[in-house]
């Protein structure tokens, strides 16, 4: 029997370092932390893709990972596919942890990578809560 899957979708916003953190944190979860339980999708596919992409949030409990308070990933998923199960916003989390992001958006420095690791742990915690509630 295959492991239960949870969708994790990052905004990957290009404007700011928080968008890069959302992307790298999601990749950490996909590659290292919960590779058996995680599925993802490129955000633009929700609007330009076929019906299959739009079934994503109906098929999997989905966590949106946004860089900033505009919450593009969350709103896009909910507009085209279905309600998100959890929403994580990098800028809100950094503020909560008293962390500042001074990392370049192109390539995260040590501070940015530390933030991405903490966001990845936050995603994993949310995943575990979802899995336990099912």
């Amino acid at each position, binding site marked *: 029997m295959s492991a239960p899957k949870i969708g994790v979708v990052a905004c990957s916003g290009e404007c700011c370092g928080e968008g890069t953190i959302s*992307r790298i944190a999601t*990749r950490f979860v996909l590659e290292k932390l919960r590779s058996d339980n995680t599925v993802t999708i490129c955000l*633009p596919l929700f609007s*330009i893709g076929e019906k299959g992409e739009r079934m994503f949030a109906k098929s999997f409990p989905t966590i949106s990972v946004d860089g900033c308070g505009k919450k593009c990933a969350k709103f896009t998923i909910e507009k085209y596919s279905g309600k998100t199960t959890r929403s994580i916003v990098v800028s809100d989390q950094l503020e909560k942890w008293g962390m500042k992001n001074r990392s370049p958006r192109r390539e995260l420095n040590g501070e940015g990578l530390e933030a991405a690791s903490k966001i990845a742990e936050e995603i994993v915690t949310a995943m575990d809560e979802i899995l336990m509630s099912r």
Partner: protein
Amino acid sequence: MSESNTILIFPCSGIGKSFGTICRDATYSVIEELRKGETDTTCLSLLVAGDGAAIRAVKSHRCFSVDGCTNDCAQKTLEILGAKLVANFRVVDILRENRELKSTSITFLDENGRKLSTLLAEKMAQKVDDLNQSGAVS
């Protein structure tokens, strides 16, 4: 938002393959180094989410789409929104011309990924020059 003659570059930033990371890195190379001041970006996700200011920006500025794969997410998103799209680039096309540069690393680019990013960025920079020399603003 940027000056009206600034070219806005939109990478797909696809998350499932190295191509998305390459097009994202190449875009930063152009806007932060190669053609700094002549080019800029804003979040593709803002367009996908329907942000009004971002949509107005792509209608009033020349835009490049930079896609990783043949889904052409950035190009199609810009076309749907009626953007002033003046050029489209694809990582897979650059790879076809440089088959020895196969890249597999997604989260952080490997050496081949960096080489592909450099080639793509140089193509975009050349296109910026061609457009600006021809005086094309629309």
